[in-house]
């Protein structure tokens, strides 16, 4: 069960049109840039992209430019300030993409329960807002809650600092963010890593993603991306 792939192209070879893909990262930190660029190159269409943000320090807007995205689910679909053109927003206004904007904590928990075999959960977040539209409400201990359902995906594209060959992962600082939970919620998890080491080289107490959640590993260059720029 060798999980190490030589190229990003091979690692994403079966990511076909219509795929639901989770992308890790928050801004540039922990974004799987090499896998995103490979996906742009491959040209997979009609993607449902699940990501905290898009074009906010990350390279996901490249997929917009290529008109590869059909639907975007995330907490920051739109940038407040625009240093680059806001491609998803333009596509949205043109009626070319669907957007589901989700509170960040609800999104994180929906992904986590997607990997955890939980059917749904009640959160007080979003009560009385447009997020609540069409959702069930329930009062628990006197507090109004919304019923939220799991998010799952065909693929998770994630970024880690180091992987061992069994797929155990460690992250660096704020690059962890959505990566570990997305790894649990997809049928196939593919990791863009800076370094590949042998089993036993990582501290078992600091492994944030156990190897059983990881299917494919590709080592790639680290890109010089800057926060939200």
């Amino acid at each position: 069960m060798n999980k190490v792939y030589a190229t990003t192209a091979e690692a994403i070879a079966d990511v076909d049109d219509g795929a639901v893909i989770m992308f890790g990262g928050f801004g540039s930190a922990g974004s799987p840039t090499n896998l995103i660029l490979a996906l742009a190159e491959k040209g997979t269409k009609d993607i449902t992209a699940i990501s905290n943000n898009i074009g906010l320090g990350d390279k996901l807007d490249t997929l917009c430019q290529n008109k590869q995205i059909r639907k975007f689910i995330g907490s920051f679909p739109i940038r407040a300030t625009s240093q680059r053109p806001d491609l998803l927003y333009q596509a949205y206004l043109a009626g070319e993409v669907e957007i589901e904007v989700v509170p960040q904590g609800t999104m994180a928990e929906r992904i986590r329960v997607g990997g955890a075999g939980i059917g749904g959960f009640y959160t007080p977040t979003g009560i009385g807002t447009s997020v609540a539209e069409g959702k069930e409400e329930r009062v628990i201990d006197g507090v109004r809650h919304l019923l939220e359902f799991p998010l799952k995906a065909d693929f998770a594209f994630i970024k880690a600092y180091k992987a061992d060959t069994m797929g155990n992962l460690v992250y660096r600082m704020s690059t962890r963010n959505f990566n570990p939970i997305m790894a649990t919620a997809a049928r196939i998890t593919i990791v863009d890593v800076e370094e590949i080491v042998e089993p036993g080289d990582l501290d078992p107490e600091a492994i944030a993603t156990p190897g059983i959640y990881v299917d494919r590993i590709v080592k790639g260059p680290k890109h010089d991306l800057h926060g939200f720029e």
Partner: protein
Amino acid sequence: MTSMGLSRELIALRVARELRDGMVVNLGIGIPTLVSDFIPAGVTVIFQAENGILGYGATTADENEIDWDLINAGGQPVTLLAGASFFHSADSFCMIRGSHIDLTALGALQVSEKGDLANWMVPARRMGSIGGAMDLAVGAKRVIVAMEHITKTGEPRIVKTCSYPLTAVGAVDLIVTNLAAIQVTPAGLVLKELAYGVSPEYVQSLTEPVLIPAPDLREMDL
């Protein structure tokens, strides 16, 4: 009109006066980000960033210090303090939703007299970004809004009912603007403090709901 009263920095300074030793604090984007520059002497607070950091330090522009793997929730490179830790986004929002954050300061587009908060979408744009704001507004023990008192076109931001899409209902505890500090209470909005040179009448004229002058209404101590 928006140039009257406090600068953005002084609004942040006033918000910082609410910090107490040992508090766990999450700062939103905009004016709130500046709060970390005005922590009162002798007070140690722990800053949480929803992208998975507890205990980060100052933002940095020092090329030798910047590490783009270490950014706050506003995308700025930050430094790390001793005792910091990292965690994933679901764990981060356990902290936030689970009421382990003592205080959050958030920007706003509108706040209603009931403490409803609208800060994620300008309706004309038809779409916006929620980020962590809804969870923070619902989960933090204390929610302070830091904003300009009126819009660029002179409309009150403190309104009877928010016309902009809501972030959370009845969430705001204290509003700090360039003109005043206003507490949200079950009885209504209580005008607690005024910026230097600003009259209660002037603040009321730029505020849609009726303000209740506090018995101890005073000039803001900055």
